[in-house]
């Protein structure tokens, strides 16, 4: 097991390296940040000085070499715009995004699995069909549109919930959290619901198809032949088997929630990482973009590792291959 984890960490360094190379070249290809940073009326002298101070006067491979050298010492560079360390800028926004993602995922899992089970157990009932029809809507409606509708109904017309921003935060061990105040929750509810909708539909469909498949298995018939109650057959025998694929998907989707909740954060003016990324891309703030994507890759690696460990805990047939490739 420790060997398995160690191997994963080494592999992730390869991924990080390739990722940094791609992003570096990609942002370079988009345009020259100097055009945006320096006043158009500045003299050529001023421009050259700015370029030199940011290291932008060097050829790309020298710039990358410097970045790599610093990155290995834990320094991902300073933001061109804000002049502060890029990583710090991102980590500052991390709690806001994280709490949004966690609440959205909880909504998706806690509603999705029971609804999916129900739809799988009663595929021909009107309630089962209604759940499936709803999940198709959740799949196909664009996030931004749903977000706007949520604001229109709950914030503008009904006036129940605030339309934008994050509520008051409380510092816990240096991390600012808005989940501890009622107003914080009121601010969180709409963006979290918006973000959860697609994942909810995905989990419903996954749970339903898993349930329908499991119900045909001999072990379910045998469990019923043993005289077990329906609750036990479904809640233990079926659920424990279908949880295995669900955990995988939830893990990966959780990663994408953290990394790419850009649209929702923009609509609800949620001060998270997604909004920062968007701003940084439009301003060609390369250090922030690179640092952001490296952080995202790291998150994915960690989540994947957690999924694999959970997998082994859920499925006794899985043995983590530590010794061989």
């Amino acid at each position, binding site marked *: 097991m420790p060997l398995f984890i160690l191997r994963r960490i080494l592999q992730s360094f390869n991924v990080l390296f390739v990722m940094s190379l791609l992003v570096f070249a990609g942002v370079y290809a988009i345009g020259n940040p100097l055009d945006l940073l320096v006043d158009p009326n500045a003299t050529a002298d001023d421009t050259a000085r700015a370029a030199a101070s940011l290291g932008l006067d060097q050829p790309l491979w020298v710039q990358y070499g410097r970045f790599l050298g610093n990155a290995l010492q834990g320094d991902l560079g300073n933001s061109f715009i804000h002049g502060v360390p890029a990583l710090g800028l991102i980590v500052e926004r991390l709690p806001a995004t994280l709490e949004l993602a966690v609440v959205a995922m909880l909504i998706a899992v806690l509603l999705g699995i029971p609804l999916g089970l129900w739809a799988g157990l009663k595929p021909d009932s009107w309630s089962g069909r209604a759940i499936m029809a709803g999940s198709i809507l959740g799949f196909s409606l664009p996030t931004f549109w749903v977000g706007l509708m949520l604001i229109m109904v709950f914030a503008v017309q009904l006036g129940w919930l605030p339309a934008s921003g994050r509520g008051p935060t409380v510092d816990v061990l240096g991390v600012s959290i808005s989940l501890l105040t009622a107003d914080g929750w009121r601010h969180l509810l709409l963006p979290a619901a918006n973000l959860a909708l697609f994942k909810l539909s995905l989990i419903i469909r996954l749970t339903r198809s898993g349930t329908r498949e499991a119900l045909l*298995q*001999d*072990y379910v*018939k*045998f*469990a*019923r*032949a*043993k*005289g*077990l*109650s329906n609750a*036990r057959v479904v809640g*233990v*025998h079926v659920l*424990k*088997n279908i949880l*295995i694929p669900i955990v995988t998907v939830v893990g990966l989707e959780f990663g994408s929630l953290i990394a790419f909740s850009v649209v929702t954060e923009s609509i609800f003016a949620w001060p998270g990482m997604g909004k920062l990324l968007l701003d940084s891309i439009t301003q060609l703030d390369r250090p922030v973009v690179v640092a952001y994507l490296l952080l995202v890759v790291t998150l994915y690696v960690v989540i994947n590792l957690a999924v694999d460990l959970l997998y082994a805990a*859920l*499925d*006794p*047939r899985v043995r983590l291959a530590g010794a061989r490739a």
Partner: protein
Amino acid sequence: MNAQREPTLVVGRLTTRFAGLGGAVTAVDEVSFNVAPGEVLGLVGESGSGKSMTGFSILGLVDPPGEITGGSIRLKGRELRGLPAREWRALRGDRIAMIFQDPMMTLNPVLRIDTQMIETVRAHRRVSRDAAREMARDALARVGIPSPDERLRAYPHQLSGGMRQRVAIAIALLNAPDLIIADEPTTALDVTIQAQILFEMQTLCRESGTALIWITHDLAVVAGLADRVCVMYAGRIVEQGSTAQVLETPAHPYTRGLLDSTPAANVQPDKAGRPQPLRQIPGMAPSLKELPAGCAFRPRCTRASTLCEQTPPEVELARGHVARCFHPLSAAEGLKS
């Protein structure tokens, strides 16, 4: 034989149908038989003959759109048909147990053996987990599983196929049921393991007075195990009687055909020393959707006449030996050539 004792199970004109788009299909058609305590009844037939569905009907586990539409199932004098779902559930795994064909598929792969055994005990009686575990261990020991304490903590994939089937049998025995329905439980196993399990099942049922219905397509298994045999074809029992009566003097042409197509280890080679070719029943088993009127075996039968377009009557050839046929073979004809 226990003919004078009150039977454990009396099935009378049991009919199970499946409603479908192309009209209803009768999977079990007016099936009647009895099983006495300690008796082994062999239920023989090809795939799709309705033998497994008969078993599931007795357990009350026919999935929609299937439904028991007629007849009665009496367990120790109590009518099961029309029982509320809750009461039927209480009987399953307690008074009637079932063993399935494929031991690789019947145990839940993600639950430990002890979990799967203890839940079976606790679904039916209020005992502590420790007491239930004790019962589980005893049951494993009874079916010949070495070091049962260790096996209890194992997951199914850590056991061999034969071992898993023993676990399934131990689960069936846990609550000392009145009736066990075994649906081809040895088909997936090696012959040596099969022989051991057959012998053990026979002994266990004799000792405890448990009635056993053994569903199989294998006449050789029936010959060594069953007291009485029912032969099913297209949802109907076409012949039933004691094992000796049915296997030695078959009266229904279908039974005769089945016997002829069974490979035997002691076949006499012909003059050139080559083994004799197996005889086959001509044609295919019919689809239940398009059964011919009258006797379903008619199109494949060499003795069929226009009379066979009517539903054949039950003919009692000897005491307890019944065939559903207009032209049953006489005892002399039925003897193996």
